[in-house]
């Protein structure tokens, strides 16, 4: 039998003005198990709290009901007071007789009656309360960053800066990501490599940062503060510790016809390669799909020329298992494939290119050493047409439903740079809307038209037809002139939509992190928790969460790092004790609860039970990880047998409230 104390607050006249608090205290004092019931001016004040503390000691209370303002206001205050008097804080319930009673009613009799009923409901609930103890779990003080683009790099640097170890897993042979392929960056036009490579070097040199390049995440288990991750280090057939990055092997390799992915296949590399000069780690990698030695066993040139003896044809994939307290996803994006849009003739003409290919054509380290030349004949293009929104803002059948966000700005950059370097070139940009919300963005776009004379045309290109003379006939509408244009262009550049990297979906499954229909990771809250995944301990950095430009990516990367640091700085995590728990004797292991859990908090264990006849039996039962569960209760309703219940909001507690209200 509980011993319950009821404390009715006047809140000055806020409550006492419309609720007869004395009558409430008196009526509730007659409820079963209530041993004391008093009213007071301000319960939340120091002396009000002391009143509660004294009553807990004097009456040996096992439960407390405070009739006052909203629990969202002072539930914690009263819980702390109870704890100070030696009562479990979760034995306190609040009846909200201010916001949900005195403030909305004028009639005193009516409001008083309602306050009594709300008090009764709280008493009925507290009758069934049980002391709850918040669990604790240790935090492993190391973070994992998945993806080594600018997002991952910035997050890793910021975490390391706070003194925590960070591992970066990057699937390519080098970190750097998409930004390494860019020429200049908008709106300031600094060179991408100049601002990125120092950060890459910093990562390599920072003692707290460990880079797993050419590696992928194979499996993830555990929970916030305590993840265990299997990392597959793919065989690169070069001993990273020995290779000096001299590059001799990449010059001598006889296999010269490997499409160079760094230049998007616009030139070739060798079978053993270093993606680019500033690669980090600067270590050669052998492409097993093309290496003659690995395929036929005959060649071995690279091994012969390597003075460091770093080549190892017998290398195999290696799995390392490491523990982390937090995981940051920074898997980035890719441009979509545009060959499905027949009307733009991407597959038909070499001179229809994507914007990322255009970046390579204008980059000094690119296939043309930075000279803008047509891929088909190597001639300088005099008329260039840029097409916006290729695959963005479409119906799901036609492409991506979202705006890819970065295309308007980089196209303005491309147009501007082209006009600056080659003033004899006519540049047309076909747009639906020009979207430039960002600091100095609209000014930048205006400069493209006002200072550089780029022709912006409101309208869309309907068709690109390659002609016999090598030009491309661009048929488009000009919506403002209300006419149809035909432009004979030398080069057509498509601003392809961007999409999350393909590796994100399987990774999300491993992390039990949720994704939207476009495979972007979802945030814990779209406004208030934008860099956290709903799964505790998983954080989001960069374009894996949605299309982003570089400044935005870097700020999000820093924000994610701050969240990680906040987590790793703790020695132990205190869990919310109002979490789900499963009655193993009732659970039949059907897995429905795990299907609705947004946090992956429910796992199934094979547990041995002693049956009434003393025989032992192994049964599959649900097990809730209290460190991961957030206490939403979705599982409790899915469970038909009622094996799954929620501490603090149990089936019986809520039904007791219902009963008290309806009586």
């Amino acid at each position: 039998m509980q011993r319950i104390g009821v404390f009715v607050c006047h809140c000055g006249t806020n409550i006492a003005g419309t609720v007869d608090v004395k009558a409430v205290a008196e009526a509730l004092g007659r409820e079963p198990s209530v041993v004391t019931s008093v009213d007071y001016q301000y319960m939340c004040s120091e002396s009000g709290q002391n009143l509660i503390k004294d009553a807990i000691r004097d009456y040996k209370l096992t439960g407390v009901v405070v009739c006052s303002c909203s629990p969202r206001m002072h539930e914690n205050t009263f819980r702390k007071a109870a704890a100070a008097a030696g009562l479990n804080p979760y034995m306190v319930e609040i009846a909200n007789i201010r916001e949900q009673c005195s403030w909305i009613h004028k009639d005193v009799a009516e409001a008083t009656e309602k306050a009594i009923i709300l008090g009764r409901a709280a008493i009925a609930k507290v009758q069934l309360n049980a002391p709850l103890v918040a669990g604790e779990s240790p935090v492993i003080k190391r973070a994992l960053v998945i993806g080594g683009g600018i997002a991952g790099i910035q997050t890793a640097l910021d975490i390391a800066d706070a003194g925590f170890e960070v591992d970066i897993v990057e699937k390519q042979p080098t970190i750097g990501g998409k930004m390494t392929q860019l020429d200049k960056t908008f709106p300031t036009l600094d060179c991408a490599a100049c601002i990125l490579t120092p950060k890459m070097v910093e990562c390599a040199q920072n003692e707290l940062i460990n880079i797993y390049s050419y590696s992928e995440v194979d499996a993830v288990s555990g929970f916030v503060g305590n993840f265990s991750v299997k990392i597959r280090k793919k065989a690169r057939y070069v001993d990273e510790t020995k290779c000096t990055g001299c590059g001799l092997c990449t010059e001598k390799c006889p296999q010269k016809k490997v499409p160079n992915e760094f230049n998007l296949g616009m030139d070739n590399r060798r079978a053993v390669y270093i993606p680019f000069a500033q690669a980090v780690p600067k270590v050669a990698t052998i492409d097993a799909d093309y290496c003659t030695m690995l395929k036929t066993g005959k060649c071995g040139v690279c091994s012969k020329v390597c003075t460091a003896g770093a080549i190892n044809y017998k290398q195999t994939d290696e799995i390392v298992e490491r523990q982390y307290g937090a995981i940051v996803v920074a898997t980035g994006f890719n441009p979509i494939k545009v060959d499905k849009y027949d009307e733009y003739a991407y597959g038909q003409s070499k001179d229809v290119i994507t914007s990322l290919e255009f970046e390579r054509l204008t980059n000094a380290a690119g296939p043309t050493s930075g000279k803008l030349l047509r891929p088909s004949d190597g001639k300088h293009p005099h008329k260039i047409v840029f097409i916006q929104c290729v695959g963005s803002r479409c119906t799901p059948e036609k492409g991506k439903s979202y705006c890819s966000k970065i295309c308007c700005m980089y196209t303005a950059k491309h147009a501007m740079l082209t006009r600056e370097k080659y003033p004899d070139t006519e540049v047309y940009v076909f747009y639906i809307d020009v979207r430039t919300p960002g600091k100095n963005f609209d000014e930048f776009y205006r400069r493209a038209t006002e200072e550089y004379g780029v022709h912006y045309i409101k309208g869309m290109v309907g068709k690109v037809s390659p002609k016999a003379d090598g030009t491309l006939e661009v048929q488009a509408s000009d919506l403002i002139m209300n006419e149809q244009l035909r432009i004979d262009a030398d080069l057509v550049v498509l601003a392809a939509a961007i999409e999350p990297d393909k590796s994100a979906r399987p990774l999300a499954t491993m992390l039990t992190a949720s994704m939207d229909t476009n495979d972007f990771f979802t945030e814990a809250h779209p406004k208030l928790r934008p860099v956290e995944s709903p799964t505790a301990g998983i954080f989001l950095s960069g374009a894996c969460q949605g299309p982003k430009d570089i400044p935005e990516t870097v700020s999000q990367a820093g924000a994610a790092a701050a969240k990680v640091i906040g987590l790793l700085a703790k020695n132990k995590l205190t869990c919310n004790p109002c979490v789900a728990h499963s009655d193993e004797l009732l659970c039949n292991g059907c897995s429905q609860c795990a299907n609705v859990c947004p946090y992956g908090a429910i796992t199934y264990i094979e547990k041995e039970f002693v049956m009434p006849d003393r025989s032992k039996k192994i049964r599959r039962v649900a097990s809730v990880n209290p460190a991961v569960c957030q206490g939403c209760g979705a599982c409790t309703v899915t469970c038909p047998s009622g094996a799954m219940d929620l501490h603090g909001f149990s089936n019986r507690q809520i039904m007791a409230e219902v009963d008290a209200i309806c009586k």
Partner: protein
Amino acid sequence: MQEVMKKRAIELLSDGTVAKVIGWMPGEFSYDMTPAVFTTAEEIESNFVYNDFCGANVSKYVMREQKKASDAKILVFLKPCDTYSFNQLTAEHKIVRENVYVIGVGCDGMADVEKIKAAGIEGITGIESDGDKFIVKTVYGDETIARADALAERCAACKSKKLTVYDEIIGEDGEVVENSGRFDLVAKLEAMSADERFEFWRNELSRCIRCNACRNVCPACTCEQCVFDNPKSGIDQKAAADSFEENMFHIIRAFHVAGRCTDCGECSRVCPQHIPLHLLNRKFIKDINELYGDYQAGDDTESKHPLTSFTYDDAEPSVIHERGNE
């Protein structure tokens, strides 16, 4: 058919592939075929039966046998509708698929003995199928009855004759039946006024004697302990003391199996009070199909059922308030 099945069962039993066989044998009367577990060739020889009275869904018996010994190899004969329940039980980890050898048996619909009796045929000892007729064996000699007149209601509105899981097939595999008409009665009820519906269901549910046969036979009712039997649940009730409790039990039971019910119709078959309980389950199935897209529980063992999944643009609950017929 029965002989082929018997032969195959004995083969698999004697070559050690399986240790138990789940099928049917006569119960109290020779027309109430009951699920049965056989462990020897002799038992099969003398008792195993498969005929047009074998309507009972045996999938749940696999679960029961595996509960006794999860590693014992079991042979089970499943009719098409039983395979859906079997899949659903597998999906919910109630059956270890690897330890079961499934022989799918084709089915053309089962006979309803009540209908045969109602046609004045007495002393029934057996049944045979013959095209669009059933030949009913009786102590007074053979009688014939048109298939349409003796077919069980649920088989007349059969949703699928397709075997969704099997290791081998005896007989013919069929297809999913389009336009089975199984929702016709639900639609008819929906078209009634609220008063008429209330009247209808009061009339039906007030007959409930809480024998729990529906719950015991249901392949989706697999709880260790039912909420209605658990004093700790706060809603336990042994017998319905009030009309509310009659409603409560059946609403909650239907809700608990919603999305998981394969529409096998066993609940209505076993109800001694002849309450059309399947109309509750079918209402959920019809709503699910209409609101969230066609879904058949037990089609496979992978997909999440409609109540444990969602789409961002699901219908709002107000659709219920906005549709016709208050």
